[in-house]
């Protein structure tokens, strides 16, 4: 069994240093603009910050992967090209991309830098992945979170590139890179602008009894009673009233996080080359706890030992976790 790379999130330079210290093999990050899918206020890296962060990561043998994983709208492609060229100058180890125009630009202009296919490209079949490899020289595909371990193993046997799978964080069951729910309410696009439920459009209201309602734009998307755990303010995790139901229900997904701690040996045996932790929007405390937990687990498996399973439930969305489709298609 080969040792998989542990790929960890960083939304700030401090988070990147934390990830490096906690044992990340690679850290992924983005610039402070729409070229990445976590274009949140106060998050991400300036060019100077990224330059210093890359130097620090490389000193410790950690790779830096630059997420350029949104889709440039017509007429705005220059921002994406500038980010790509800047990343090359700063010495990133790989780009994570979703758009075929972006992939084509990198393949033509920076052929020596590795190209990883983002989960946002939603490539889930060997045919689709092989096309990306053939056309753009993609070296790794980040698989959507809709495949079982046995399906991943099958795909691994039919493609020429590495496989990266999510192991912790956002459950992400929507068809990734295609979701337009935020766009309907806020006018901002997850795929073009890099922001799902922009904070400027989110409002929390707490009533006298301690109930918390979450609003996005002009719409209430959930209401948590005082003892209920909460989730992110996204439409896909909202609860809705319909005539067919007695009370609000989760029409798309529940607030719940993916946690594949117990499936790590299976994933590694299936030929997964890299294990990804979601959460660039999360804190240093999250990065330190989650990265160090999975570092220990992966190292234990490689040493032939039983992996220690850390209790990460307090860090999960809604304080609930699942192995989702990785374990069973009927997980819900």
């Amino acid at each position, binding site marked *: 069994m080969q040792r998989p790379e542990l790929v960890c999130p960083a939304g700030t330079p401090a988070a990147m240093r934390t990830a490096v210290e906690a044992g990340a093999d690679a850290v992924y990050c983005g610039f402070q603009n729409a070229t990445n899918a976590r274009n*949140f*206020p106060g998050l991400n890296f*300036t060019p100077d910050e990224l330059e210093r962060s890359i130097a620090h990561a490389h000193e410790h043998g950690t790779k830096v992967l630059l997420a350029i994983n949104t889709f440039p709208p017509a007429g705005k492609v220059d921002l994406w090209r500038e980010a790509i060229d800047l990343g090359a100058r700063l010495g990133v180890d790989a780009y994570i991309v979703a758009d075929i125009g972006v992939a084509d630009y990198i393949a033509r202009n920076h052929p020596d830098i590795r190209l990883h296919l983002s989960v946002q490209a939603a490539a889930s079949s060997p045919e689709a992945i092989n096309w990306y490899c053939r056309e753009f020289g993609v070296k790794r595909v980040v698989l959507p979170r809709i495949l079982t371990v046995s399906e991943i193993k099958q795909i691994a046997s039919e493609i020429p590139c590495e496989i990266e799978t999510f192991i912790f964080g956002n459950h992400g069951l929507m068809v990734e890179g295609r979701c337009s729910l935020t766009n309907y309410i806020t006018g901002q696009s997850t795929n073009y602008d890099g922001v799902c439920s922009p904070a400027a459009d989110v*409002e929390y209201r707490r009533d006298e009894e301690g109930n918390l309602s979450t609003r996005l734009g002009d719409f209430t998307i959930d209401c948590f009673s005082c003892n209920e755990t909460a989730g992110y303010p996204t439409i896909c995790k909202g609860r809705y009233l319909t005539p067919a139901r007695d009370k609000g229900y989760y029409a798309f997904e529940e607030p719940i996080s993916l946690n594949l701690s117990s499936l790590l040996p299976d994933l590694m045996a299936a030929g997964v080359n890299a294990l990804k932790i979601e959460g660039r929007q999360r804190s240093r405390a999250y990065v330190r706890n989650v990265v160090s937990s999975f570092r220990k687990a992966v190292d234990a498996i490689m040493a032939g030992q039983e992996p220690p399973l850390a209790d990460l439930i307090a860090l999960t969305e809604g*304080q609930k976790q699942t192995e989702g489709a990785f374990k069973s298609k009927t997980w819900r």
Partner: protein
Amino acid sequence: MEPVTPTQPDLQTGDIRAPRLRPPLPLFLLQPILRRIVTRIAAQNPDMFNRLGPHRSANFIIDVKGLPFALHLRPDPDDLLFRAVPRNRKPVADAEIRGGFLDLLGLVDGESDGDALFFSRDLVITGNTEAVVCLRNALDDVDGSIAAEVADMFGPPGRAMLSAMRRASARRKN
């Protein structure tokens, strides 16, 4: 004259019940200390203000459950403000952050995750969510611990106090 009702924490929520009448708190004693703290933190971490973007002039109320007063923060490096305000006379603010003392301490100590505290409902934010997100990201991009920087200002007693609070926080988590 109506008798003074002592301040009582609500055992369900940790809130302070507003008494019908209470003596004015001697907040003026706190103000120079709070001013010194915010000035020191700002001087030691000048880059963090960049993450606040347009919200550096926003006014935040930090409502610590169990304290008989609230805190008013304006993280503008050119016009810094950090002061205690009476609970019944909180100024109009852009956003309010409400949580338990140890939870909020964990955030500025780099030991707690704000999203997790939100999920568990231990942290409540109202008002301008974007301003709060920017403040959270600015504080989280500080290497080390803001709580430790503050403790250092008060020498060995400050560090001992922080150690005691960290132990209390760890005991609660376990």
